[in-house]
């Protein structure tokens, strides 16, 4: 029996039992569509987040107090194992390093903000004017923090869009007094709504001078120092330079951790990539279930067509002819299901893109290829048992059945 004849015979058989064929195609289609749509969603989230990070620029280095990895033995590690504070002076020193374009200290905390007779618990970010350039904050109204002496507490405050809306409604709030903890500050600007950023949701923050925040939270240590390297290609050299500087300033001990944005990006990429993979795996379960259904439906098909199998054998079909006929039918229906499901999945992905225009929900190529291959493979794998069952039928017994 030639391959073309086998396929034609299988196609006629599949079309001969419409309801059975439709059910099988539907089962496989749902499985494939689930993989395509869910990976589109997962990968869309990954791309969205990556895009958000990349838009900030990838020449950033973050300095954090404490050491997350074990270094070599030094005098410092014998004398003390408590990391030194990361101070405003450290930040200023880093800002003066040759390879550093800008640096800004960052202090964070929660405090209540009151204005216009309203009170709200909010995130406070203590920093300096250069953070706006480093993290690409855009000011919607007014201006950003003034470039004063870092060590002097100032009275200016810049608020996020959500904070503005909740405290001042439709008004800009500029020039208004705002009470943060026990300090009275004046709102000088509103940051353009951008949503999630590198240091949290900017819209829900109040940005104040670093020294003010340190006094407010009664702390001498910074949360981070955000550093922008002069050149994108010189991030590694900048990192080394900062390390040398910090070691010199902290008594020969490197008690800070430096994270480049590239490393951060790579981490996010792998985490979100794993998420997409996990989602794909869950969706693939539905493909496996569809595979079981393929087996069930094909077993019914063999039972329905027992007499036909007997006839084929009487007419001289070999065991492998019978196996191929039923396998071809399972493969054919699985393929149709897979193609149909691919279309369905793309439609769903399109629906997601329409509903959430910021989310680039395109199914990744590997997921589409894997879904189609898996659908075909499960059709063949789960079709094998029924096909072998058919081939093993005794022709005399099979012919006696109707």
């Amino acid at each position, binding site marked *: 029996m030639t391959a073309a004849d086998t396929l034609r015979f299988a196609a*006629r058989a599949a079309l001969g039992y419409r309801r059975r064929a439709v059910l099988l195609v539907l089962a496989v289609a749902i499985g494939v569509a689930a993989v395509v749509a869910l990976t589109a969603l997962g990968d869309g989230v990954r791309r969205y987040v990556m895009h958000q990070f990349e838009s900030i620029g990838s020449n950033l280095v973050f300095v954090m107090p404490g050491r997350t990895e074990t270094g070599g033995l030094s005098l410092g590690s014998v004398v003390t194992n408590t990391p030194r504070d990361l101070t405003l002076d450290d930040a200023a020193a880093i800002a003066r390093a040759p390879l550093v374009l800008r640096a800004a200290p960052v202090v964070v905390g929660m405090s209540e903000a009151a204005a216009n007779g309203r009170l709200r618990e909010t995130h406070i970010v203590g920093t300096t004017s250069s953070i706006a350039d480093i993290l690409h904050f855009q000011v919607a109204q007014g201006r950003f923090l003034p470039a004063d002496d870092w060590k002097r507490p100032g009275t200016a405050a810049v608020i996020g869009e959500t904070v503005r809306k909740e405290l001042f409604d439709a008004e800009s709030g500029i020039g208004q007094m705002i009470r943060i903890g026990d300090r009275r500050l004046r709102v000088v600007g509103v940051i353009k709504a951008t949503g999630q950023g590198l240091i949290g949701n900017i819209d829900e923050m109040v940005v104040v001078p670093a020294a003010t925040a340190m006094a407010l939270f009664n702390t001498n240590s910074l949360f981070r120092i955000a550093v922008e390297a002069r050149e994108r290609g010189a991030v590694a050299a900048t990192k080394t330079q900062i390390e040398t500087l910090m070691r010199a300033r902290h008594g020969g001990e490197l008690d800070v951790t430096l994270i480049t944005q590239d490393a951060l990006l790579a981490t996010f990429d792998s985490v979100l990539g794993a998420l997409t993979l996990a989602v794909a795996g869950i969706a693939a379960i539905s493909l496996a279930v569809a595979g079981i259904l393929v087996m069930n439906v094909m077993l019914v098909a063999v039972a329905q067509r027992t007499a036909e199998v007997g*006839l084929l*054998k009487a*007419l001289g*079909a070999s065991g*492998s002819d019978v196996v191929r006929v039923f396998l071809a039918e399972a493969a054919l229906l699985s393929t149709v299901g897979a193609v149909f499901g691919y279309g369905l999945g793309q439609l769903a992905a399109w629906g997601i893109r329409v509903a959430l225009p910021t989310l680039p929900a395109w199914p990744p190529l590997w997921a589409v290829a894997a879904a189609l291959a898996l659908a075909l493979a499960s059709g063949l794998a789960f079709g094998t048992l029924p096909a072998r069952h058919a081939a093993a039928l005794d022709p*005399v017994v099979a012919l006696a059945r*109707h």
Partner: protein
Amino acid sequence: MPQLELSRITRTFALGKAKVRALTNVNVSIAAGEYVAIMGPSGSGKSTLLNLLGLLDRPDTGRYRLEGRDVTTLSSDELAAVRRERIGFVFQSFHLVPRLTAAENIALPLVLEGVAQAERERRVAEALARVGLTDRAGHKPDELSGGQRQRIAIARAIVMRPAMLLADEPTGNLDRHTGADVTELLESLNDAGTTLIVVTHDPLMGRRARRRLIMVDGVLSDDGGAPSRLS
């Protein structure tokens, strides 16, 4: 050399725990071109004998030589090849594939053999003409009468130009008149040289056969008209 030669054939079926002897020590030889009717009461083993002759079933003991070749030791795929090339089957219930047209049903053995499309069409048309149903080529089995269905089944049985036709109650599902037509068709094929072996209850058809094998309880009780006896 006889075309078919069964010697000391025994076939036993396990029916639950009991063992039923369907055939006991059967010896038959049939020459090419013979017209043989296998007769006997229900359960006498005549269908089992036909299945053995058609290589659909294997004997437990004994030897079966088909055209001089011992076929008792062949693998099931080798048996399939012999069935495809040398044997045509006609069944009581026609066994046409309902979703295929008459022409496609007839073409099935050619498809299994892998005959090229053009040659296939030519031979299907020839077989259709031989059974007088050229105008029914595109009809599905459920659009045909019982007699027409059996003619299509006969066309399918002869499309590979087999050496022998094995028919199991070919007129059992037909009325007297169409049954007679089918009988005549089979006999005309036999006249053209094909060996015809028919299992039948129909005494009329039995009488028309040139040789009758009477089966009783799995034993060949009478071999009326064996060539050896005639001579």
